[in-house]
């Protein structure tokens, strides 16, 4: 949960990432792992395109009637014996969770992986308020030990090597034999399980996110591969699920659709190992479950995205396929972006919650190759939305002004063919200046030779009657 890099310094952040040899090594796993896994999973799904269309339609239907479905969800949660809380902002959401914890008299909190709690920065204030807060997703646990933000939406410790994890465990788990062998994956997982099991057993509050909220039943759905959500929502006496309002789905059938695409898009799994559904607290005769069940619904900028230009962002099911297929993300990793949600979805989403002035590099730092939207299970038009934010940045003058002015001059010149051609010719001697755009081009590349004549002018000359 420690501080992010500054998104305003994105170009400098990328240089740092490109020069970081161990990071570059871990990033190779994107092409050899995530991309191949997804491809294999999709090859056995001939109906992929119709499923994507159906998921986009289901999410659009939910968003078109968002207040209705949210209220239906609330009604059903209450009917099931739970409580619903509404938070407009990050600070309201934090205050609500802290109050629930205080009023329930809890001390120890376990958390299942939740990007929303990263977005609102929940852990630090809870710890300040005197609670013990332990992340229980293995990746989240590792970065919590290292005091780092996640670098990937579904694999928060993606930027780390196994040796990094071994070192973190040795530093943190001082109660264990310092001579123990934890150099292989298996023993690391065994040790994490041992440490975290103690935390689960001692916890009196479990905080989870939500992959989906089902309006017709008042159900919270969570998927994990480690069972951490199951334990967080079943064992402690209080369960708080915290979710963005866009996670709402009208019906269980919609959830079935989302689940068919989520695991495959994310990690190439047909289904994740665990799919956990919870509707309300423990009922009479239940073997387990919490005594109290709370859902915190968070806006935090999402309703601003409801306008036509950006609405599709709210279809996102956080599978991270867009990150895994983004050549920029694959080059620099998640931390360079300096925000909670890196990669294309972050470029489309983050300006709404952090402001375009702070995040203008994110939607700009794309070659617009379009691969992200070609793999998005909800068919979010990511390129179009990134272009929208570029337009917003250009209009507000937040993108670097020389670039904006250069574009305006370019458009002016291009409306006057003679001026345009004269400028193209006159610009040539300046190609070799040690500053300006061509100097940036020449940093990594040779400049193309400047031909003696321009093509269009030459044809015109030749064809003169």
């Amino acid at each position, binding site marked *: 949960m420690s501080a992010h890099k500054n998104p305003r310094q994105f*170009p400098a952040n*990328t*240089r740092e990432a*490109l020069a970081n040899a161990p990071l570059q090594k871990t990033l190779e796993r994107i*092409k050899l792992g995530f991309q191949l896994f997804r491809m294999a999973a999709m090859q056995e799904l001939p109906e992929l395109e119709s499923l994507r269309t159906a998921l986009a339609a289901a999410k659009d239907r939910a968003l078109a009637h968002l207040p209705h479905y949210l209220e239906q969800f609330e009604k059903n949660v209450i009917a099931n014996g739970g409580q619903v809380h509404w938070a407009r902002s990050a600070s309201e959401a934090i205050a609500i969770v802290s109050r629930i914890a205080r009023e329930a008299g809890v001390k120890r909190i376990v958390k299942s992986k939740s990007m929303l709690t990263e977005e609102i920065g929940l852990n630090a204030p809870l710890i300040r308020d005197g609670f013990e807060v332990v992340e229980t997703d293995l990746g989240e646990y590792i970065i919590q030990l290292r005091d780092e933000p996640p670098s990937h939406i579904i694999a928060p410790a993606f930027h780390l090597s196994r040796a990094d994890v071994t070192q973190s465990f040795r530093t943190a788990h001082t109660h264990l034999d310092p001579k123990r062998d934890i150099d292989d994956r298996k023993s690391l997982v065994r040790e994490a399980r041992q440490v975290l099991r103690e935390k689960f057993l001692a916890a009196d509050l479990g905080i989870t996110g939500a992959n989906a909220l089902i309006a017709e039943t008042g159900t919270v759905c969570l998927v994990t591969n480690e069972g951490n959500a199951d334990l967080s929502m079943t064992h402690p006496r209080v369960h708080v699920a915290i979710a963005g309002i866009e996670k709402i789905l009208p019906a269980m059938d919609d959830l079935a659709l989302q689940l068919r695409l989520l695991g495959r898009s994310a990690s190439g799994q047909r289904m994740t190992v665990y799919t956990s559904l919870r509707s309300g607290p423990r009922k009479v005769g239940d073997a387990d479950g919490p005594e109290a069940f709370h859902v915190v619904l968070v806006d935090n900028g999402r309703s601003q995205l409801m306008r036509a230009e950006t609405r599709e962002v709210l279809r996102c099911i956080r599978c991270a396929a867009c990150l895994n297929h983004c*050549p*920029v993300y694959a*080059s*620099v990793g998640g931390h360079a972006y300096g925000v909670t949600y890196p990669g294309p979805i972050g470029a489309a989403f983050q300006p709404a919650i952090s402001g375009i002035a702070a995040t203008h590099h994110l939607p*700009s*730092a*794309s*070659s*617009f*190759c*379009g*691969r992200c939207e*070609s793999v998005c299970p909800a068919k979010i038009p990511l390129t*179009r939305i990134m*272009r929208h*934010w*570029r*337009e*917003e*940045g*250009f*209009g507000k003058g937040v*993108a670097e002004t020389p*670039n*904006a002015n250069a*574009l*305006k001059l*370019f*458009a002016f*010149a*291009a*409306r006057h*063919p003679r001026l*345009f*051609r004269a400028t*193209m010719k006159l610009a040539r001697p300046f190609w070799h200046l040690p500053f300006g755009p061509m100097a*940036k*081009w020449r*940093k*990594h*590349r*040779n*400049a*193309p030779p*400047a*031909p003696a*004549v*321009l*093509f*269009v*002018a*030459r*044809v*015109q000359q030749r*064809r003169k009657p």
Partner: protein
Amino acid sequence: MIVSLAQGKRVGLMATCMIDALSPQTGEAVLRLVEQCGFTVDVPPQQTCCGQPNWNGGDRKGAAALARRTIEIFEPFDYVIVPSGSCGGQLRIEYPAIFANDAQWAERAAAFAHKCFELTSFLVNVAGAAMKPCGSGKIAMHDSCSALRQMAATAEPRKLLREAGYEPLDNPSAETCCGFGGLFAIKYGDVSARMGRDKLDALAATGATTVTACDLGCLIHLKGIAEREGRNLSFRHIAELLAPPEQTS
């Protein structure tokens, strides 16, 4: 001469500013190639830039101004050939989007879009052209992202290359961007160059020493890096590989 439905129609060439300023020999090759297929090609001298840098830079006003004048210049033609997937995509896909909230121009842009074709798509799908044998050897084929995703022109260049006698080879990262991306290459040059190096590795892995593409932008970017690093690769726009040799008279 090949007979096709497009025979006798008016064909205009949107040369693209990159070919205009940096590679006139590519423009000449396009003319020879299309003329060989039986068309007379006009090159309207008023043409400048399609406006993509402005559109992608967030300057809707500038992009709309350049789109309007490009439409006005090329509207009289039955077909507009663009020797670039990227600029072609701008005319065909993005122009209607630019005018989404301008009823009059939206209609005009939509009608115009249907006339605009990337070069190889035009030759195969409109002209029904067959290539005369004019070369040989292995060629590493690079699909620009716009040719791949916006224009869906991937089979066409390969078909034409094969007819002309070449052996086009696919590279293992065919769906990954080479890192050019227009102004992206300058604004985020370090990331762009890293992507370019990855792409050059993949292209070199095909075993071919000549790389071709339907887009000059990708090629100039890749060539610039390859030259800087002393890689043994040469780069030719697809029109230069397919065009008949220049008449020396």
